[in-house]
């Protein structure tokens, strides 16, 4: 049914590439990566390249009109910045629909402050309540006011993609009129150290799908999509951007931090998303891969891509070579990047690729490619084998 289609009517993004869709697009087209030397995060491991949002907390608060006395952590600040852009594009700042759900993905939450004040929170007790993931969601919701329902998904690197899925289900069951979905994550010492102990960080810029890849670079950012049913978008008179045509979530169930050699979870996620979208593998024009640059992920995901697409593998690239791995925000950051690619008819480059992986039958796209597209697929795979895939399509 035409009126049951789920459309994207607003998008907002902030990352190491800058603030907003235009800055993101410009960076992608000019092949300007956001990965570089650490500037804001204070850690002894400052030799790891990261992709930081080029704004301090104070600058963001100033830009948002939030008093400097407000108790708020970096994760929700990034979220508010990104959501603001989406809000305006979807005309939610004008006439507000009655039932809006806000679904946020985050894992860091307020940890970036907690780790500074731990263990006593001496004179900083107000930040104790800001620690858990759900507080970030509340902080964002409070800024915008008027949400009917909020919740937080915390599934590490697939959080934002899972938020998209929940939002779609809330719309399909008629529980809400609009679902704002996505994720936000800032850098923290806790998580940088955590990834470092797992020995999956690269001390240079990451090289997704390269035979000599060593690991990932962490990134921070936030991104949200506004979803609503077609009929509702028409009634509101808002211009739709594209369609969310399919999605799926599965579990690899192989290991706590490693993906299975045959990429079973990834395979099922992509396969089920295609089924959900009523599309065939050959319909997909571009895969925005999870492509972290770790030995394990790229092999597992690459294997899964070969299993799904066989001899007809569409162009693949990982834009984590631009934004770094924004973990809980990756699903929505990369969805927006995929949608920008879809609308502007180009495939973003997979930066830093030089050496084909001998195990794979394909190479990622090394250079920005012009291509008219209809359907794009984006993958987000989290720790614990939480594998999600979303498909976005042009509206005919």
């Amino acid at each position: 049914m035409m009126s049951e289609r789920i459309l994207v009517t607003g998008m907002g993004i902030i990352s190491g590439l800058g603030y907003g869709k235009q800055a993101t697009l410009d960076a992608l087209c000019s092949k300007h990566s956001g990965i570089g030397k650490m500037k804001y995060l204070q850690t002894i491991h400052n030799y790891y390249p990261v992709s930081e949002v080029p704004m301090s907390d104070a600058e963001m608060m100033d830009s948002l009109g939030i008093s400097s006395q407000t108790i708020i952590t970096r994760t929700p600040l990034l979220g508010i910045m990104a959501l603001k852009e989406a809000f305006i594009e979807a005309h939610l700042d004008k006439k507000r629909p009655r039932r809006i759900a806000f679904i946020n993905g985050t894992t860091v939450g307020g940890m970036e402050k907690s780790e500074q004040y731990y263990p006593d929170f001496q004179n900083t007790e107000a930040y104790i309540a800001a620690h858990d993931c759900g507080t970030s969601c509340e902080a964002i919701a409070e800024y915008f006011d008027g949400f009917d329902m909020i919740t937080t998904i915390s599934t590490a690197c697939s959080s934002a993609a899972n938020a998209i899925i929940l939002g779609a289900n809330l719309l399909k069951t008629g529980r809400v009129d609009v679902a704002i979905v996505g994720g936000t994550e800032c850098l923290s010492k806790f998580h940088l150290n955590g990834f470092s102990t797992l020995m999956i960080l690269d001390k240079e810029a990451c090289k997704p799908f390269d035979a000599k890849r060593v690991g990932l670079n962490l990134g921070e950012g936030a991104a949200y999509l506004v979803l609503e049913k077609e009929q509702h978008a028409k009634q509101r008179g808002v211009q739709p951007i594209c369609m969310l045509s399919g999605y799926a979530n599965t579990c690899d169930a192989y290991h706590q931090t490693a993906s299975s050699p045959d990429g079973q979870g990834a395979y099922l996620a992509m396969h089920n998303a295609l089924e959900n979208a009523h599309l065939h593998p050959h319909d997909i024009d571009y895969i925005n891969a999870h492509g972290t640059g770790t030995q394990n992920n790229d092999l597992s995901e690459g294997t899964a891509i070969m299993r799904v697409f066989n001899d007809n593998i569409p162009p693949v690239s990982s834009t984590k070579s631009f934004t770094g791995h924004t973990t809980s925000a990756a699903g929505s950051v990369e969805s927006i990047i995929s949608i920008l690619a879809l609308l502007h008819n180009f495939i973003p480059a997979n930066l830093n690729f030089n050496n084909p992986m001998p195990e794979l039958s394909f190479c990622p796209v090394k250079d920005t490619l012009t291509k008219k597209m209809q359907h794009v697929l984006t993958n987000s795979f989290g720790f614990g084998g939480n594998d999600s895939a979303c498909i976005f399509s042009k509206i005919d």
Partner: protein
Amino acid sequence: MDALILELKKEIIEVLNLEEITPEDIDENAPLFGEGLGLDSIDALELIVLMEKNYGIKLNNASEGRDIFKSVRIMAEYIEKHRTK
């Protein structure tokens, strides 16, 4: 070497939280990974931290550990050769 092997066994039990196992249960010549004690890739990372923390030996990536952690004896021999603490 025997003293180091015993010390290593105790440290392995502690850092890997092998609650039900005593040093006497661990055969220093048996494989640590796969069969034998049945440790996995996360345990390997823990042992890499142990090497650096207790013996000052820094390994640069997880795969370097594969040969060193073949058994407790091989580990002990490597530590004896390369320790800086």
